């Protein structure tokens, strides 16, 4: 409401006649603000118009990060023809995987306007627990479950302290960061002969195969086709149910376009994965298992956030905790659960990371890991102030961070350059976010 309103005070003389032009102006303004939201799209052209309008009014969605990713990829491909080779792209998937999952861990708490600085070391400690149990000849799944239970419990503990004592998560998880980096050393020391030299080797083929193994070429295709078909069926069913109930649903052409986009992305990923990346004598083909693991986590978490009460409440608390409380939502319980899920996902990250390294050591830089993960989430479009973001952001942002690291490595640039370039991209992403948000507030 930009228009200054004449204060109609308690004076009996105040009449409405002298404010009539003002009222007229206000009505048109209100109509305009209503119309600036999307009208009903009946065709692709209309949909695109609405889409452009939304971008201009600050609802840019995933567009900036996708454009950014394409620009960065083109840049590296010009600099090094190896960049878009199948071998390097599969490398990139395995390098970005644990950043993506740790980014998803952070998104649970970032949506609440909180942060978990300890998540990197939570992952490392979880990995130690898993690899230790594997070394003691427990089955791999016992090791993984124990790791996830421990990291989830630790996350819940942090959430409990934060909500019960009403302490800022920044400080509590900073303490967690320090404490767990110590716990990591302590745990590895306690393993005795298993962790000689501060390194525990990974003695499980199955865990090792998450990053090291691949589906067969045929299986990669089958999985991709099944996933795309499932997505298509679900989208059509959802649209149909809306139409049957007399609600506005996107036109069929738009849904078909979306499905086509998903299918193209799937085909490209499988084609890359199925291209021989081995040597002349030993062919290596197929999608790395980790791609499926990350996709599964992404789908489950996206459903959890977007289609359950729990997810809705996380957004509500991040948007206005007081409103959530007055709506009868148990804010403390939701927050503790979010921190527990953050811990659990850090545990998943720990397993993937140890699979990537083939071991876990006392030298894991949990600080770097967690900051990269937060950067990935923010680059992807998740707000640090809560209430805005989705799980897909971690995938897109994690790919950006991964591409920069991978590309600069390929160009032979040292860590110094990698870190500074990542910093620039992060600042650019936050700038885009801030500018679009400003656009939304003034529109």
């Amino acid at each position, binding site marked *: 409401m930009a228009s200054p309103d004449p204060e109609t005070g308690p004076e009996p003389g105040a009449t409405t006649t002298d*404010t009539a032009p003002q009222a007229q102006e206000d009505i048109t303004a209100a109509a305009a603000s*209503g119309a600036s939201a999307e009208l009903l799209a009946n065709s692709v052209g209309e949909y695109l118009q609405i889409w452009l309008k939304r971008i201009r009014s600050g609802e840019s969605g995933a567009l900036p990060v996708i454009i950014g990713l394409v620009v960065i990829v083109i840049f590296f491909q010009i600099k090094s023809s190896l960049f878009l080779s199948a071998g390097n792209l599969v490398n990139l998937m395995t390098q970005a995987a644990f950043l993506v999952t740790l980014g998803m861990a952070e998104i649970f708490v970032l949506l609440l306007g909180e942060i978990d600085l300890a998540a990197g070391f939570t992952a490392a400690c979880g990995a130690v627990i898993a690899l230790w149990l594997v070394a003691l000849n427990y089955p791999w799944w016992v090791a993984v479950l124990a790791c996830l239970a421990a990291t989830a419990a630790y996350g819940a503990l942090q959430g409990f302290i934060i909500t019960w004592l009403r302490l800022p998560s920044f400080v509590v998880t900073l303490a967690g960061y320090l404490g767990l980096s110590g716990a990591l050393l302590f745990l590895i020391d306690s393993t005795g002969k298993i962790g000689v030299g501060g390194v525990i080797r990974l003695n499980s083929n199955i865990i090792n195969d998450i990053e090291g193994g691949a589906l067969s070429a045929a299986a990669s295709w089958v999985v991709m086709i099944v996933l795309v078909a499932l997505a298509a069926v679900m989208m059509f069913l959802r649209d149909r149910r809306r139409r049957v109930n007399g609600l506005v649903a996107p036109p069929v052409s738009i849904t078909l376009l979306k499905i086509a986009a998903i299918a193209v992305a799937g085909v490209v990923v499988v084609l890359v994965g199925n291209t021989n990346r081995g040597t002349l004598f030993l062919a290596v083909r197929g999608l790395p298992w980790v791609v499926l693991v990350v996709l599964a986590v992404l789908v489950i978490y996206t459903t959890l956030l977007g289609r*359950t009460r729990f997810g*809705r409440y996380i*957004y509500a608390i991040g948007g206005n905790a*007081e409103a959530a409380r007055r709506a*009868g939502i148990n804010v403390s319980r939701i927050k503790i659960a979010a921190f527990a899920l953050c811990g659990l996902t850090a545990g998943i990250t720990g397993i993937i990371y140890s699979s990537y390294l083939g071991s876990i050591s006392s030298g894991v830089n949990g600080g770097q890991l967690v900051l990269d993960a937060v950067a990935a989430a923010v680059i992807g479009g998740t707000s640090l102030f809560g209430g*805005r973001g989705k799980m897909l952001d971690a995938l897109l942002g994690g790919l950006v961070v991964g591409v920069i690291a991978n590309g600069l490595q390929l160009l032979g640039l040292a860590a110094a350059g990698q870190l500074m370039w990542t910093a620039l991209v992060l600042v650019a992403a936050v700038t885009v976010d801030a500018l679009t948000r400003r656009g939304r507030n003034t529109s």
Partner: protein
Amino acid sequence: MDGPLLQLRGIGKNFGPVQALDGIDLDIPAGKVTALVGDNGAGKSTLIKTISGIWEPSHGQLAWQGKPVHFRSPRDATDAGIATVYQDLALCDNLDIVENMLLGHEARRHLLLDEVTMEKTARQTLSDLRVTTVRNIRQVVGSLSGGQRQAVAVAKAVMLDAKLVIMDEPTAALGVSQTALVLDLIGRLARRGIAVIVISHNLTDVFQVADRIAVLYLGRLVSVGPAADYDPASAVDLMTTGTSARIQSADLTARTPDSGAEG
């Protein structure tokens, strides 16, 4: 004649030695808009917080639909059918209109949120209230104008089957046309048989929408009666001094017969 929806008898509230409310007797009838007016510090906010369960009264008795009640928490009052729309509206700017209206009462289908049912419910409520300025109920609340936000907050209250809607300064931050929209909405609530209590500083709005006026002065109810018995000048007198020479009928400054208590 049916009894009033809500009856306050001798309601008092102390904060330590400070007496914020003193012996309030007030009836809130269904289907009527009762305006609660008074200067700053007169006890308007304390009174509605007592009704909506945020504070328990130190003295006196509330009767809801003829039965004595004790609201120990806002939840008790909400469950009884009292919805309070505070000045800050308690909306989540990042959620859309449907999500805000059903927050805490989401419909589910196979464990997942049932967006179709929720959208239909929200749309029905908005159209019942003739809130037509909102084109798309899937737009985020942060993009709405002040009056539209107020309308969403009221619709949210109505959807929970509120029998009494309390509104704290509903027009304070609004422009002229937005104010008209909200006043119109308040009138429509009353015509649906809902009791409405409106707190307002703006006497123009009060006289436009209120069926009854209750004036608080320094924690006491100094006057209550049909809005037609007042004019802005007498209301200002009552708000600022607790009495008014301009009120013709003498018992207005005491208790009116329709307040149900013997003066």
